């Protein structure tokens, strides 16, 4: 029993990332509200980022910014730096994440303009109800707009 506990305790941060990822993933696929889905996506992605950042961690390491102490040249060899590469990757990934969020939100606004709701089942019901006429109707409407 204690072994299992030790095993869990030793990597407790990893288990928390896993929990976060599962929460986010669950929200993405199970929540009916579109905004909730996007929130879930954000949580999922940040959890992955957290995993990356924790990979970079080195015990006793400092941020990867070169220190210029009094004897600058030597300092670089004495200080332990954390691994900079995951940081770079995550900088990029954060940008990707915010871009995806922006596009998703724009889509949500568009959906709300058409269906008047951001609940998945309401939209689904609406589409089902209007299925035969709706596409035709929408087309005429679009032509009218032009």
């Amino acid at each position, binding site marked *: 029993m204690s072994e299992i506990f030790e095993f869990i305790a030793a990597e407790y941060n990893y288990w928390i990332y896993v929990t976060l990822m599962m929460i986010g*993933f669950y929200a993405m696929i199970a929540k009916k509200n579109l905004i909730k889905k996007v929130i879930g996506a954000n949580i999922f992605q940040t959890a992955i980022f957290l*995993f990356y950042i924790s990979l970079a961690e080195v015990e006793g390491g400092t941020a990867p910014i070169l220190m210029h102490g009094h004897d600058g040249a030597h300092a670089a060899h004495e200080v332990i730096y954390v691994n900079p*590469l995951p940081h770079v990757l995550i900088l990029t990934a954060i940008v990707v994440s915010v871009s995806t969020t922006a*596009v998703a939100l724009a*889509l949500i606004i568009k*959906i709300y303009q*058409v269906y008047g709701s951001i609940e998945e089942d309401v939209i689904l019901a609406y589409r089902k109800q209007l299925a035969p006429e709706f596409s035709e109707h*929408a087309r005429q409407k679009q032509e009218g707009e032009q």
Partner: protein
Amino acid sequence: MSGFDMIMVHIPLLTVVTPLIAGFLMPIVGWIDRKLCWYWVMAIMFVVLLMASSNLYTVITTGTIHYELGGWKPPVGIEYVIDLLNGFVCLIIAFIGLMVGIYSKESITKELPNKIIPFYSVFLLLITGLMGMTITGDIFNFYVFLEISSLSAYALIAMGDRGDGVVASFNYLIMGTVAASFILLGIGYLYAVTGSLNMADMQNLLPDLYNNNNKVVLAALAFFMVGFSIKVGLFPLHAWLPDAYTHAPSTASALIAGLMTKVGVYALIRFMFCVFTPAFVFDITRMAEILTWAAALAIIIGSVLAIAQSDIKRMLAYSSISQIGYILLGIGLANLIGMQGGLLHILNHAFMKCALFLVAGAIFYKTGIRNIYQFKGLGKKMPVTTLVFLIAGLSMIGIPGTVGFTSKYYLALGSLEEGMWIFVIVILLSSLLNIVYFWRVFDNIWFGHPHEVEHIKQDEAPVSMLIPMVILAALCIFFGLFAYYPLHYILEPLSEALIGSGVGP
């Protein structure tokens, strides 16, 4: 070094960067004159096509090209690698891109008259994303370009049918984000156990871990598989695909159906064979076996669902699901013949499906009809368009003399070589199902009751829409009769290399 040589060195890079820069500059080009946009896209796509051909030619004649970005040696910096596999896929991307570009002139002017500038900008960025995913030899760079292509695809799909298009796009976005997150997670796992991001470097570092039965590597493989399966719309994970293809604007459908899934499949191959090793994927984990069965299931179920559709684009979308099954089946068989069949089907399916979606778009452009039961008399009204549909449709069925036959034949042979009779039967059964759903359309196009269609006047789509369709149809027949050339020069050595040890990227 002469100026020409200097340019030639950079061609692999420029294949990606040219459409990227052109996409950035699109707002400025459009600011000068909106009419310039299309010509700009055409010029760029033509140049990209030339560069992609030049890449492939160089690969065939002199071997794999390496391009170190920023001059940094691979594990330090990012590297572009072009071998036969991605040279081949790049050429397809460039070619289909050009065709759809030509086609888009009229269709976009009608469908999105006041959004031409951002449309073409996104169009070029989509090409960039796909090219970048294909050429890169760096696993994280791959992810970045994957996102470029995904974001542009979401935008393009959302431009389609009011309401439906947006919902389809949103569902795709959610699924796509799940897929991308899985892929990112997989990349993270591989990074955690190897410390590298370069594909070739990884392939060298990973085998030690297989022998220790490292669980992280296995999980990474699983996440990649699921992620890419979502991206290509493999059967149990295909839910986003039909809506997205159906409700996108016709240009976007053609582009996405023709290219997005192909590049997804390419990525799957690349990861299976060039990041992991075939030995790992096929023998140690037997992941490929699962893939093959899923593919077989996709072939049948995709075809059956296609029969149930009355919207032509939705029918084509389901048929895409089954065709993706063909490609993956060939890859999963992992023998020389099956592999060639699968790879050949990437080329073939791009031609056929693109042509079919373009036809569906042209019909919608002219008549506003997408329901196949309202197609009566179209054979008289739009003879060229419907003829293209006939050729591409026969191709999908797999009539000999068209491209569909050669790949089907190879896939059947490959299955037989593995002793998997069931897959042979699956392939043949699906061609019968293909007949059912395509023939329904043929019947409606040409065999309406004569008195109903007697008075119809010929009214073809504009020439700029016809040209790409006719070219694609012609290629469907050309490569049906001369499949020897791609097979002999590209796919045979490629399959040998992939099966052999996995080519280093």
